[in-house]
């Protein structure tokens, strides 16, 4: 248990609707529709709350025919509150943490469901977006121009600009009509 996990647990429980869900689950496993009916919420709202509880590790889901059944992870809930509150922070480099946070924010604002909304004007942001696109390429593998375009085009319509920029930034290397990811 780290301080980050503890924070996720407290955040997820600091909402009356989610506490009501946890309370309902103390009586037994339940599926989304039943919880929605009991708590007077829509099924999609219950699913949203369940996702938060699952991310915090408080709830486990399993598929049973057409239903998603939820149960409490009692091993976590039965831990003394003292131990959760006293959890130590994860040992990370502060500078690295800030950079990761910035990167995540750039990705969240420029990508939607895997598509690039717009090519960033600022170079730092552009590089982050191109690094995300580069993850679609296997390092060292040789790609034809058509293959490169086929990978980039579903992400953004201006695949030619992105392909050229990625070469310019040293992410892709061009050798005649062959392309290789080098970074």
């Amino acid at each position, binding site marked *: 248990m780290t301080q980050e996990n503890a924070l996720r647990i407290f955040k997820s429980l*600091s*909402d009356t*609707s989610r506490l009501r869900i946890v309370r309902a689950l103390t009586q037994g496993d339940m599926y989304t529709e039943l919880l929605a009916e009991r708590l007077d919420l*829509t099924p*999609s*709202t219950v*699913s*949203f*709350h369940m996702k938060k509880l699952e991310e915090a590790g408080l709830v486990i889901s399993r598929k049973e025919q057409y239903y998603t059944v939820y149960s409490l992870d009692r091993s976590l809930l039965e831990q003394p509150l003292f131990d959760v509150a006293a959890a130590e922070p994860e040992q990370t480099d502060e500078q690295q943490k800030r950079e990761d946070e910035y990167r995540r924010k750039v990705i969240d604002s420029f990508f939607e469901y895997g598509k690039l909304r717009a090519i960033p004007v600022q170079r730092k942001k552009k590089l982050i977006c191109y690094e995300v696109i580069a993850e679609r390429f296997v390092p060292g593998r040789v790609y034809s121009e058509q293959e490169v375009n086929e990978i980039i085009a579903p992400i953004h319509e201006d695949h030619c600009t992105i392909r050229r920029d990625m070469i310019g930034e040293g992410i892709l290397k061009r050798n005649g009509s062959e392309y290789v990811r080098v970074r």
Partner: protein
Amino acid sequence: MKEFIEYLTRQIDAGRADIAGLEEEGRQDDADFAKVRTNIYEVCRTVTNALAARPNAGAGAVKAQLERFRTAWQAALDKAREHGDARNVVVEETKLTALADVIAHFPEAEE
């Protein structure tokens, strides 16, 4: 159209009371979804006020705009479902439910 605007205003007032109640109960995420719902009534009231008064527009233009919202938000809901985006599924469903309610109360005789 006056009654329709009054209906939207009542929904906005009721929505604001819901938001305050949910926040008071400590249900912040549900309150945020109630804000989304209330905002739809506000958007529809603004659109109605703006288009209904415009020459060559009127009720038909308002209804057409509401239908355009429905198409766009349904597409957004489909996309959110496709990507398992739980928050946006609730947001888009909330928008569509409020919009369906608005359309159901749209004055038929003035179409």
